[in-house]
């Protein structure tokens, strides 16, 4: 999948996890906190993302994921195991 497709898929996924925010309002620049997600919500989000994207969110790097764009970058860098 190319970057544009990945971005769209991640945005769609995030939209399904937040409340009172329309998918059209979410961009790669959107920060989780601004979308109403606290630190534990973010942990839950990454747990669900593992299933959807087939990627393991593990290690120190994960603690600095704060925005939609961060997730896109992480998945790009850690493609799913074949």
């Amino acid at each position, binding site marked *: 999948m190319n970057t544009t497709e990945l971005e769209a898929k991640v945005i769609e996924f995030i939209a399904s996890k937040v409340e009172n925010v329309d998918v059209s309002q979410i961009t790669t620049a959107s920060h989780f906190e601004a979308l109403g997600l*606290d*630190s*534990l919500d973010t*942990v839950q989000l990454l*747990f669900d993302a593992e299933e959807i994207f087939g990627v393991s969110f593990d290690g120190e790097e994960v603690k600095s994921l704060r925005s939609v764009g961060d997730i896109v970058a992480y998945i790009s860098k850690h493609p799913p195991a074949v």
Partner: protein
Amino acid sequence: MRVVVTGMGIISPIGTGADQFWNAAIQGVSGISNIQCFDASGQHSRIAGQINGFDPSSFLSAKQIDQTDRFTQLALCAANLALEDAGGLEGYAPRRLAVSLGSGMGGFSTFESSAARKLQNKSMPPFTVPRIMANSAAAWIATKHGLKGANLTCSTACSSGANAIGMGLDLLRTGKADAVIAGGAEACVLPLTMSGFEALHALSTGFNDDPARASRPFAKGRDGFVIGEGVGILILEKEEAAQRRGAKIYARLAGYGCACDAAHIVAPDMEGQVAAMQTAIEDAGMTPAQVDYINAHATSTPLGDVVETRAIKQLFGERAQEIAISATKSMIGHSIGASAAIGSIATIMTLHSGTIHPTINLVEADPECDLNYTPNHAIQKKVQTGICNAFGFGGNNASIVFTII
């Protein structure tokens, strides 16, 4: 009508029996070590406050061991110690003797092993459910000692033991019981339990190579709580009856308060903690000005210790700096449903002995935690009124007030 504590039983990572536990506590002994009870090499947190050398066969038959989870076995042993300490309750009618016990996880060791068996399509042992159910310990204590009155179990996470003791106080005050065996028991140093707490980022993971320093309430560099197991049991009676039978009286159980944050399912809220302490003090017919010791909930989480500090400052104002505080969990870890029962015993021993046990590992305090936490060394100080705090997941805040008699 005043309620008093006439017996205590405790099994903890730093000692069995009130004297052994207290001697270790005032010396600042750490009971935290690398996990030995299961292969923890795959866990992020590989340390715990474990009870070593506990042998249920020393007081239970093989059949009774088959029918009980570890948490029930610990509770039974501590109840035996407490009743022995109190000199027995034979003078009371059996229907007037109650049990009120707290446990956050109940028979979770049995749950974890049963789930593994089920996933492998193996058969279930017949006592699977009776071992797992949270009321198992209270039921077994009653059965062993013929206690035919109310048999209550409270499960409110980390405040289970405190609420159970409070419920015991209420049973006596409302005339529903003449004596209550009250406390909390937990045996949850287990793979699934620990992974669950790890997934919440609640456990300390940065001290696996230096376990004794991991549980560090109020200190800089704390990174979460250390899981622990244990049991604390109090024998509660009405003061007049206890005096009539010549019972040894340790302290008065003066008040109990419980207040829900109603804010977040796990993150603590200052107002709820203030309300629990305030309600407990008022229930004791006292004012905050009379409190001179706090056995803090203080689990060594970055957030929790700060919130509790703020709550203490909010309620006690300028006087907060004069109150001696100590964190038992710095030595034994967090035994969830048992923690407040053990903290209560520490509070009672503080009143009884005039010594305040230290909060260990407090080399450098978090700047946001600037009260008097009795760092590293016990101090001699006669205190008259102590509060034991317990602030559990679910925003469940409970405080218990003990006074000298």
